[in-house]
């Protein structure tokens, strides 16, 4: 009997192959994500178990006596190599392959830590000293930068940046969305450009004191470049963007992001996430604000408050509600 599941053998074979490739890809991805690579061949992984515990997995059993000696281990944040965390206890699992270090004080898991295991002993044989680096899963960090810039530390509602453009273009929903999208595109370009210039020109030549001048130039360069190219390549989109493309220069978020990147020494991916988060956060802010202001047109507002005054009050209320996100940590 034929049913929907019957298919010709070639198709079935092809699908099986795709599935197998998918599975391999999935496990490769998982491998990359979990970061199984450690700096010592005998140590398979070192991860934060919770805020007080670190678990280290070995390739083979280690000696009990070695594992019980707390002096063999040291834990410190990479940024503070001379401040060692107090290790309260070290416990070895029953198969002697997994070691748990318990610390007296809670660790800040946002920061990378260094764990030193001195002279690992396995069956009485010394395997040398292992120096391990502990990090949060990297995609988690990237995602928390993105969400952080977008919502938790929204540039408009919690840092009060870019207010001029924010109030100027949030009267109608369509213009607000247009401005938000243009802004996101430009800020991503400008931030990437400033990151490259900062890392590869300003820092090597010790010119980082000129960063503000350079970043302002880069922002105007990006806007001018996008303006010139878009005018020719996509006149329709150019018309839709209209005056907002030039207005982007007047937005201070676009200069705040490169300065933040430079200050925090973000790498390329982190910079991309911050720029994207800032742009999308601005888009969200504009959309929310324009939705309210469209309704305010029909509301009974005291005459003195009509227009901008009530908009400022609404923005303040939004800022208050966004304060609800503050202090949130994702990973």
């Amino acid at each position, binding site marked *: 009997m034929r049913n929907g599941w019957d298919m010709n053998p070639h198709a079935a074979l092809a699908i099986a192959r795709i599935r197998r490739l998918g599975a391999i890809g999935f496990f490769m991805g998982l491998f990359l994500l979990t970061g199984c690579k450690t700096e010592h061949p005998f140590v398979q992984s070192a991860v934060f178990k919770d805020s007080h515990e670190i678990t280290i997995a070995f390739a083979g059993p280690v000696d009990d006596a070695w594992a019980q000696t707390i002096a063999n281990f040291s834990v410190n944040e990479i940024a503070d190599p001379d401040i060692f965390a107090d290790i309260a206890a070290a416990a070895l699992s029953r198969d002697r392959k997994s070691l748990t270090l318990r610390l007296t004080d809670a660790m800040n898991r946002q920061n990378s830590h260094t764990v030193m295991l001195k002279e690992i002993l396995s069956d009485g044989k010394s395997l040398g000293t292992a120096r391990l680096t502990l990090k949060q899963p990297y995609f988690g960090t990237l995602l928390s930068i993105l969400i952080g810039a977008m919502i938790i530390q929204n540039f408009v509602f919690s840092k009060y940046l870019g207010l001029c453009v924010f109030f100027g273009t949030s009267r109608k929903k369509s213009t607000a969305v247009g401005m938000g999208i243009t802004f996101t595109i430009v800020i991503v370009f400008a931030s990437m450009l400033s990151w490259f210039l900062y890392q590869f020109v300003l820092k090597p030549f010790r010119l980082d004191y000129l960063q503000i001048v350079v970043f302002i130039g880069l922002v105007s360069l990006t806007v001018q470049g996008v303006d*010139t190219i878009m*005018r020719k390549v996509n006149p329709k989109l150019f018309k839709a963007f209209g005056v907002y493309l030039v207005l982007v220069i007047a937005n201070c978020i676009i200069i705040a992001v490169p300065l933040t990147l430079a200050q925090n020494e973000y790498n390329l991916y982190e910079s991309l996430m911050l720029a994207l988060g800032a742009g999308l956060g601005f888009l969200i802010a504009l959309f929310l604000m324009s939705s309210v202001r469209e309704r305010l047109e029909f509301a009974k507002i005291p005459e003195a408050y009509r227009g901008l005054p009530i908009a400022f009050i609404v923005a303040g209320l939004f800022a208050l509600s966004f304060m609800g996100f503050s202090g949130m940590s994702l990973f």
Partner: protein
Amino acid sequence: MDPSYINLALGGLAVLGCIGVFFGLGLGLAAHKFAVEVNPKVEAVQALLAGGQ
């Protein structure tokens, strides 16, 4: 004044000048390559009108 500061400042001028020239040329070439023909009358009329912003 410490000569190293002067060197740093001069080096900065040189590097920033190079960056400026590089990007300026880039923008100029882009403007040349992506030039859009505009009716000269439009510009003439716009120059006569009062500029709002």
